[in-house]
């Protein structure tokens, strides 16, 4: 992988590794300064080995999760990358006809090949130009009676092998393609396997002109020219003359491929540049000039700019950049090369057309179509780069997916660090108090904890990285097992050094930061409190006066500038000021300074400190100014983003100071009300709430509301306090109200408040936010009402008389350390919550299995034939099959043709034509399918069958795929049409039922032909699942008459659907169909079996994922273990006393197990309850888009999770519990 969340992995690795080194160096220097502290800190580690090991295990899990997520991402992207490299081989740039075969002739004459050669002659970047023919045709081996339809047959020019001659035979030798004379073929390993063919066998190629037999002279690896494509790997090579003859294309080719010097992986820039240069050669200057002059008007440029600024509808990774380039280039007087390249992007052209129509000039838009269709003679694509970009995207997506689900576990891991430190501090309060009493400073305590923590962190990061690698090997192994049945894609393990560095450093830095914060927190102890061992865990900070706080805050409003000026003034005159910049700006001087600063702070020359501060701030000021200028200059946002970090830091410091200013009043709650209200309002969308203020962000709205809830609760507490209620009562009432209010608010369905706030956008962060908030609220309620629960529990268990004393103590201890217990409970709940949600989500999709008709439309087999080998009469072929197939085998046989078109919704805001696909279906298909419609226009019928029948008889009416309408929901803005594909406005997925038909216009894609556009009316919307194996989210289903108007060539029927007399024979007939229709290259699939296979694959992936998240469970379990281990140590004396009172060893053991058990059980209850709630909300939101889902809690799965969680936590508690029970009272009581 090269990027993680949009940041270059290289950069990330360097920054994080740098951070790690800084942390380690700082610790090292600090340790050198005071070895005693180091010794004091480190001796704790070997003293309690079991505890130390448990801590390290607990801490390492976040690193493990990060590492395995990254390694899986690496493996996915490298596997896809190698698939891409295998498929394209040495080819880097491909030139094809701009006209699709459905709209005209897509073959190229030899003269074009010569022009390409001419263009690259002497170009050092190029080491080969290969004209070739690539088609997909059926091949069979008559000897073994094996066939393979859709084989990628490649005709290569033997005279042009230079640069492409890297094929290897399966025996490892270099494959010599020069022997590919007439009647000979070279096949690849996959095809050889499919056909069971060997060298010397004869294979038959089925072509439009008839069959031909070829002798296999070599079998080669599936790479390069013999790599097939990413979908079908089977390939056969012929000489190009052979294929030209077979296809009746003498002297013609259908693509020209160019190899960039350097073998398989070449410089990406070289290949992009070459593609651009070649594109320029094949641009029609006249057409480009016409377009330039037409577009060069202020009105159009402004409209385009407005479109760019609005962002929304020019998304799509390849379009918005080119549109921006184009707008810039239009400022010139004549078309530049950049303009020419930008204008060749067809998506950009479609957007421009739409914009021109929107500003009210449809004739101009129409007139552009002619030059646009003449613009390029050859379309040039840097195909290898494009493939690699996709590999990157998919890898990144996988990492994001694993990270989002893993983030709960990471949070739990970080909470564990905090918990461990709270407990270590509690255990050492007396010791720490004494250390403080003899005169050490607070920061020494921080350091002590930090040293110890860092040692744990390093160990944890190391172990975590190793374990993460192991886990990822296992996970990838399972995943590759899952895709093993797919011949076209092999999944292999790969991990990059950067990923390892990033995982290790990120793990270390995350733990180190948490360690630092916890150390700081626990060091804030009151000496007297600590020595006397009084209960209070922390003490309050001393608060500076209001005036002083305000002054500090305001000073920072002045920004770094004031600060820098102040500091400069403080430097005494007469000092050689020029020296310091020299000293500072040499890295060596900086190092001296850092060493001084940390090692011997009292001896650091004061002037050096001032100068350091000054320089830092000067850098900040300069950086801020530069950033502002650059941002103002616009356009170069990418380069400025790094610099704009600096003013951001300044602003954040100011915010922090403002927070410190308000902080003393926060506890009273009221400042949270306005702050929360402001944040929440900012979250409204810009049409609700305050005009033009809101940004429509769900995270902001919910966080703001949460602040308001907490503020209100605190205010309530203040009121109760004034009324002189008991403190316990105040806390209970106010905190319970906060908890309950938060539960209700966060538990609402996701769109419950849309009426108030407008539709808000939210991503996966909402999942995390809502999970954490809900769990916090629930734990809050439980902890502040623990006595009620205790009462209930002891009433229940108290019936078993002998357990009563045990229950009493098992409850008393956790209740006495509420912070700790709450933290443990929260961790455990979070883990169960995540597992629960995932269990519910994976259970949602099963509706498809129950109702396969939703997907199949009542057809049993779907089949596709080769477009070059159309079927004239299906019945005739079946009749001639010699009894292999009978007409009576089939109830229904239907045909469909598909055509890529451009379409738009008439009268919509966005008039740009976007991509769509017409599925021209014969009347049989239209009238016999049982696909359900979710939306229909009542003017044309009231049932799905009515609407289909109407469409069958009325060519200008259509039904569209369910993926085309507006959705709303969890994790996305649900707005189809924002990309390069057509989306319809005004039909909402969550409001199924009647709608008024929508008019759309369909036309051939820009640049293809200037055929007529047609107007049709959409009167039905297909169910989301319908036809989902056809990848047709932009499909428009209608009768075939319309095709003749759009395309100037007949479009062949290539998709066949069969309904069988006996559905149980589907798989058998599928195989027979492929043989009988071999002359047409038919590939057929049994739909129900396909659904089942898909489902089982999904299920396996889900289980894998659940296993990954189960890592988080380990953290939760480890936390209970840590707590128990600590408890045994802390309570030694009390255990002795209890034994003296007559508690038996076993009773002590049960007490410990019960303490963990109570947390585990309550954690499970909270986790399951909240998981079911959020699962329900997610279900509501998803089913708004796709009905047919059913909500059910997979009790078996949930029970398993809970049993595993509880049993494992009891097992980890078992060892300390046993230790406790073995404590001898006489020894424990000795003092």
């Amino acid at each position, binding site marked *: 992988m090269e990027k993680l969340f949009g940041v270059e992995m290289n950069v990330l690795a360097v920054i994080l590794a740098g951070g790690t080194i800084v942390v380690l160096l700082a610790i090292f220097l600090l340790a050198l300064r005071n070895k005693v502290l180091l010794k004091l800190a480190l001796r704790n580690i070997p003293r309690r080995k079991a505890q130390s090991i448990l801590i390290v295990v607990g801490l390492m899990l976040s690193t493990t999760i990060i590492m395995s997520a990254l390694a899986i991402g690496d493996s996915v992207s490298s596997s896809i990358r190698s698939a891409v490299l295998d498929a394209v081989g040495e080819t880097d740039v491909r030139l094809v006809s701009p006209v699709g075969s459905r709209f005209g002739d897509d073959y190229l004459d030899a003269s074009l090949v010569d022009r390409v050669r001419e263009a690259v002659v002497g170009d050092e970047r190029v080491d080969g130009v290969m004209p070739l023919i690539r088609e997909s045709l059926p091949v069979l081996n008559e000897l073994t009676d094996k066939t393979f339809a859709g084989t990628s047959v490649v005709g290569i020019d033997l005279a042009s092998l230079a640069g492409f001659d890297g094929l290897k035979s399966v025996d490892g030798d270099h494959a010599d393609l020069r022997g590919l004379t007439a009647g000979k073929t070279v096949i690849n390993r996959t095809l050889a396997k499919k056909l069971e063919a060997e060298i010397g066998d004869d294979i038959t190629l089925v072509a439009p002109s008839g069959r031909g037999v070829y002798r296999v002279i070599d079998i080669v690896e599936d790479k390069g020219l013999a790599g097939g494509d990413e979908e079908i790997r089977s390939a056969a090579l012929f000489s190009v003359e052979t294929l030209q003859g077979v296809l009746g294309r003498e002297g013609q080719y259908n693509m020209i491929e160019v190899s960039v010097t350097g073998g398989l992986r070449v410089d990406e820039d070289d290949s992009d540049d070459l593609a651009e240069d070649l594109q320029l050669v094949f641009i029609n200057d006249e057409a480009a000039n016409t377009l330039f002059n037409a577009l060069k008007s202020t009105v159009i440029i402004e409209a385009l700019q407005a479109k760019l600024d609005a962002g929304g509808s020019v998304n799509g990774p390849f379009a918005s950049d080119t549109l921006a380039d184009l707008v810039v280039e239009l400022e010139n007087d004549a078309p530049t090369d950049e303009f020419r390249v930008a204008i060749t992007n067809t998506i950009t052209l479609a957007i421009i057309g739409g914009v021109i129509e929107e500003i009210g000039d449809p004739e101009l838009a129409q007139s552009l179509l002619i030059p646009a269709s003449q613009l390029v003679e050859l379309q040039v694509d840097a195909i290898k780069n494009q493939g690699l970009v996709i590999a990157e995207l998919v890898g990144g997506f996988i990492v994001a997916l694993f990270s989002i689900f893993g983030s709960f576990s990471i949070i739990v891991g970080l909470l564990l660090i905090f918990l461990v430190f709270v407990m270590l501090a509690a255990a050492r309060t007396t010791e720490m108090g004494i250390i403080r009493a003899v005169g050490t400073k607070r920061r020494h305590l921080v350091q002590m904890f930090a040293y110890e923590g860092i040692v744990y962190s390093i160990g944890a990061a190391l172990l975590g990285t190793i374990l993460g690698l192991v886990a990822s090997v296992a996970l990838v192994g399972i995943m590759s097992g899952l895709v093993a049945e797919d011949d076209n894609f092999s999944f292999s393990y790969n991990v990059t050094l950067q990923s390892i560095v990033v995982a290790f450093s990120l793990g270390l830095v995350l733990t180190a930061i948490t360690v630092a914060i916890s150390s700081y927190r626990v060091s804030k102890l009151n000496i007297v409190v600590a020595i006397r061992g009084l209960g209070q865990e922390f003490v309050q900070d001393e608060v500076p006066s209001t005036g002083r706080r305000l002054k500090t805050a305001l000073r920072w409003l002045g920004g770094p500038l004031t600060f820098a000026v102040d500091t400069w003034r403080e430097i005494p005159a007469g000092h050689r000021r020029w020296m310091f910049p020299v000293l500072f700006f040499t890295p060596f001087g900086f190092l001296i300074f850092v060493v001084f600063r940390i090692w011997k702070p009292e001896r650091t020359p004061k002037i050096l400190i001032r100068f350091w501060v000054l320089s830092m701030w000067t850098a900040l000021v300069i950086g801020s100014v530069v950033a502002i200028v650059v941002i103002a200059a616009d356009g170069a946002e990418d380069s400025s983003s790094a610099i704009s970090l600096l003013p951001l830091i300044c602003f954040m410091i100011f915010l922090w100071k403002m927070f410190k200013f308000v902080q003393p009043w926060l506890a009273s709650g009221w400042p949270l009300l306005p702050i929360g209200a402001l944040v929440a309002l900012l979250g409204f969308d810009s049409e609700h709430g305050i005009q033009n203020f809101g940004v429509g962000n769900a995270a902001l709205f919910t966080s703001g509301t949460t602040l308001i809830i907490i503020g209100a609760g605190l205010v309530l507490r203040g009121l109760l306090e004034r009324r002189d209620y008991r403190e316990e009562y105040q806390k209970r009432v106010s905190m319970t109200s906060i908890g309950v209010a938060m539960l209700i608010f966060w538990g609402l369905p996701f769109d419950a408040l849309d009426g108030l706030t407008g539709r808000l956008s939210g991503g996966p962060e909402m999942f995390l936010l809502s999970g954490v908030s809900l769990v916090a609220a629930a734990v809050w309620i439980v902890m502040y009402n623990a006595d009620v629960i205790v009462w209930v529990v002891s009433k229940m268990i108290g019936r078993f008389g*002998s357990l009563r*004393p045990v229950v009493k103590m098992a409850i008393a201890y956790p209740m006495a350390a509420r912070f700790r217990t709450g933290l443990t409970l929260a961790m455990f709940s979070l883990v169960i919550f995540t597992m629960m949600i995932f269990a519910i989500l994976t259970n949602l999709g099963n509706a498809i299995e129950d109702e396969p008709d939703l997907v199949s439309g009542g057809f049993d087999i779907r089949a596709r034939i080769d477009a070059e080998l159309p079927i004239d009469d299906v019945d005739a072929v079946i009749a001639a099959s010699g009894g292999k197939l009978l007409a009576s085998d089939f109830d229904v046989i239907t045909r469909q043709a598909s055509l890529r078109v451009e379409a738009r919704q008439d009268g919509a805001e966005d008039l740009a034509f976007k991509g769509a696909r017409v599925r021209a279906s014969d009347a049989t298909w239209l009238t016999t399918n049982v696909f359900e419609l979710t939306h229909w226009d009542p003017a044309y019928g009231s049932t799905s069958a009515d609407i289909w029948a109407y469409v069958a008889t009325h060519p200008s009416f259509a039904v569209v795929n369910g993926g085309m309408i507006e959705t709303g929901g969890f994790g996305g803005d649900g707005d189809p049409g924002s990309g390069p594909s057509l989306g319809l406005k005004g039909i909402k997925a969550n409001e199924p039922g009647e709608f008024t038909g929508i008019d759309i216009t369909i036309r051939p894609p820009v640049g293809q032909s200037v055929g007529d556009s047609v107007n049709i009316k959409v009167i039905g919307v297909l169910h989301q699942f319908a036809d989902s194996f056809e990848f047709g989210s932009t499909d428009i289903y209608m009768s075939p008459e319309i095709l003749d108007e759009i395309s100037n060539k007949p479009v062949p029927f290539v998709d066949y659907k069969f309904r069988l007399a006996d559905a149980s024979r589907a798989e058998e007939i599928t195989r027979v169909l492929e043989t009988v229709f071999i002359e047409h290259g038919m590939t057929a699939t049994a739909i129900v079996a396909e659904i089942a296979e898909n489902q089982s694959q999904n299920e396996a992936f889900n289980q894998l994922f659940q296993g990954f998240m189960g890592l988080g469970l380990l953290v939760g379990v480890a936390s209970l273990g840590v707590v128990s281990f600590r408890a045994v140590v802390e309570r030694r004396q009390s255990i002795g006393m209890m034994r003296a009172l007559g508690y038996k060893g076993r009773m002590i053991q049960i007490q410990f197990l019960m303490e963990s058990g109570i947390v585990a059980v309550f954690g499970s209850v909270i986790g399951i309850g909240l998981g079911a709630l959020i699962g329900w909300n997610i279900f509501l939101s998803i089913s708004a888009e796709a009905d047919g889902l059913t909500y059910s809690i997979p009790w078996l799965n949930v029970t398993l999770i809970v049993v595993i969680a509880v049993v494992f936590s009891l097992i980890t508690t078992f060892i300390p519990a046993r230790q406790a029970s073995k404590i001898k*009272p*006489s020894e424990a*009581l000795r003092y």
Partner: protein
Amino acid sequence: MDTGPIISATGVMKTYRSRDVVVEALNDVSFEVQPGEMVAVMGPSGSGKTTLLNCMSGLDSIDGGDVAIAGQLLRTMSDDELSDYRASSMGFVFQAYNLLPVLSAQENVELPLVLAGASQREARERAAEKLELVGLGDRTDHLPAELSGGQQQRVAIARALANDPAIVWADEPTGNLDSTNASEIMDLLVRLNNERGQTFVLVTHSEDVGGMVHRIVRMRDGVVVSTSDAATARSNSSNS
């Protein structure tokens, strides 16, 4: 009714090993305590007083000899039986009070009762009664950390008495207290001994305490060196 000694130790041996050093904490110790007697074990630090108490009460095991409580040999009892025995018939008071920090005074006293199977109400009533007895009827809801040392020791005594045990073992009960508090606690113990006839075994090195008991057992280096006359001891105290 059994008229024999309630506690009888014969030839008790106890050795501790720490690394290579063997310490003979108890060396052939034999002595008896009669029911209702109040005995003080005295001697310098390290003489084996606490070890003797631990061994006689069954908190610790012995390496030789025999200890019998009410005629029953501790050696023959399992750890569970010993626990039950402690719960029903013994009370302990320690120098460091050893109250359970997470329980209130009331709950600390209730604990032995709950352990013995008393109902919630019975436990509450009897615990309140015992706290009243030690003069802490108004502090029942406080946690140990919120009480003074003397108060904590009273709670500990109330807890030791909760089950009306036959024997109360007290290891340096006044060791952590100032003289006023110490004598108050001792007065309390003597009063309880007089009123209730329970047997008390006290470990102490305070001569003041020694003066208030029936009999003093003096130890040195793990050996009983003398046993003073009970009458002498108690009369001394009444004279003072």
